[in-house]
């Protein structure tokens, strides 16, 4: 009887020690993550003005947000941005990772140039890319490439592409790193066997590299989607959402209503969150269904 009891006490003590270690994290997690999550959903059903307190508003915030043409346009803008970045960045980083997948100091240095902008803040990125296209050679270069004169920042069909380009320069490195790590984890025997069988480089890429990188491609697509949906800093610093609201995003919309109409802003963020979840699940579903074809 006695040894069993002391074992129980020791076990209880052991459990308590573990929870003691966890307690600081649990406190901040509950305070700054769980509570705001619940509170945000609650706020989205209330209307708060400067003078009155919180009044229950039912779904009126949601209806208000969803019937606001500005918000709808912001949603279209963000979908455009997300589709473009997911397709272009995934494809491009896959290619660049393959090109950079070799040893040597020169490759290492050049690769560092591609990754380094990751550590810069969005304000620095924003200033550089805004200045390049207001006072620098940016417009001349683009005009030269497409063969007609454009002012990118004032042009509704080009402004979002400037955001896409600046974001590419800033963040492509993280995808490249993930794919490079993936490539380096593929056993070299596979490639040697393919070489013996006389497979071409292109064939090897599609038959060995791509199928083995599939899990990572899914990860990159999902991470890219989640990051793209939260686009804020680049349009905030480069275009201010213009011209004609063509680069404005839902997060900028939420930011705009934050101090004036908190229930409205909450409803918009819940809608944005649900959209992010839905799109991520659709992507996951579509990519896993295509498994047989790869």
């Amino acid at each position, binding site marked *: 009887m006695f040894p069993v009891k002391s074992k129980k006490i020791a076990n209880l003590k052991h459990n308590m020690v573990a929870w003691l270690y966890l307690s*600081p994290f649990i406190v901040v997690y509950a305070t700054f993550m769980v509570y705001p999550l619940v509170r945000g959903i609650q706020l989205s059903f209330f209307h708060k003005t400067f003078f009155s307190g919180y009044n229950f508003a039912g779904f009126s915030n949601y209806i208000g947000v969803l019937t606001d043409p500005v918000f709808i346009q912001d949603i279209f803008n963000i979908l455009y941005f997300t589709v473009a970045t997911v397709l272009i960045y995934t494809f491009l980083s896959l290619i660049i990772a393959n090109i*950079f997948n070799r040893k040597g100091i020169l*490759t290492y240095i*050049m690769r560092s*140039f591609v990754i380094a*902008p990751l*550590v810069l*803040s969005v304000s620095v990125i924003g200033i550089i890319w805004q200045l390049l296209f207001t006072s620098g050679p940016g417009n001349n270069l683009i005009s030269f490439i497409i063969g007609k004169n454009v002012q990118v920042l004032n042009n509704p069909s080009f402004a979002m592409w400037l955001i896409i380009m600046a974001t590419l320069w800033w963040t492509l490195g993280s995808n490249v790193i*993930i794919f490079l790590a993936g490539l380096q984890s593929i056993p070299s025997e596979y490639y040697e066997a393919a070489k013996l069988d006389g497979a071409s480089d292109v064939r090897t890429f599609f038959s060995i590299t791509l199928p083995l990188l599939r899990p990572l491609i899914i990860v990159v697509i999902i991470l890219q989607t989640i990051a793209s949906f939260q686009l804020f*800093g680049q349009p905030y610093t480069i275009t201010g959402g213009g011209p004609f609201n063509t680069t404005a995003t839902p997060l900028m919309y939420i930011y705009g209503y934050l101090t004036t109409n908190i229930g409205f802003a909450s409803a918009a963020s819940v809608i944005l969150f649900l959209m992010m979840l839905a799109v991520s699940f659709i992507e996951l579903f579509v990519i896993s269904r295509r498994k047989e074809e790869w």
Partner: protein
Amino acid sequence: MRNKNILLIALIVFIGLVWLVPLLWPISTSLRSVAAFYRNPNLLLPLDGITTFNYENTISRVPIEIWYLNSFIVSLSVTVVVTMIDFLAAYPLARMKFFGNKFVYFIIIAGLMIPFTVLLVPLYDFINKLGLVNTYWGIILPQFVSPFGVFLLRNYLLSIPKELEESARIDGANSFKIAFNVIFPNSIPGITTVAIFTFLGSWNNLLWPIVATQNPMLYTLTAGLTSITSVNVPNYVTIMATSSIIAGLPLYLIFFIIQKYIVSGLSLQSGLK
């Protein structure tokens, strides 16, 4: 084969240089005189003479040293607290069997999927009610939560061999001593990775500081840079280019030292290791 190699190396150098060019222009602009800049704004290298005028002018017109200081205050406190809290949480999750282990781990993974977007509005409401708007605490406190750090550290701690711990236990060390004298020194690379990611995340955070404070003297560097407008400074273009270099270049250079931690952190994030 040889030709193919040369072509590949040429391509590698080309891509690297394409990535470098957007940075050359603001560096060049910051080093040229205002008059020279307006004569030819497109130079990628300061071929027509170098001056420090833009740097002196920027530092006297823009409170960039105050923003730097604020960024250090905010990012350092966030980094120290997050690293400590996350290590303490990762230790039992990786090294102890206890009631609720799997459940807590699940909650942390769930936290990884909650975007800041959905927390922004209620967090503002929260710190507003606490009276912390326009204070350092308001900027710092909500950044203390980092499930990613726990996730990363837990994975790192799992890779430390059990024998290290057992020999310490035989010598009579308690769990506190094991955590700090055995596990902690052996997890320095993991802790460094978490510290670097936390520091960079906090340093580069734009949205939260501009929400939590409207006082430009409390702005972090990232927030402050966006508050400069052509209305409040003359020679806007050269001052902005110079500000971006003063703010960006030190981090850009530090990157080359900390590169391996960034690479390992991102690989861990993708679930590769």
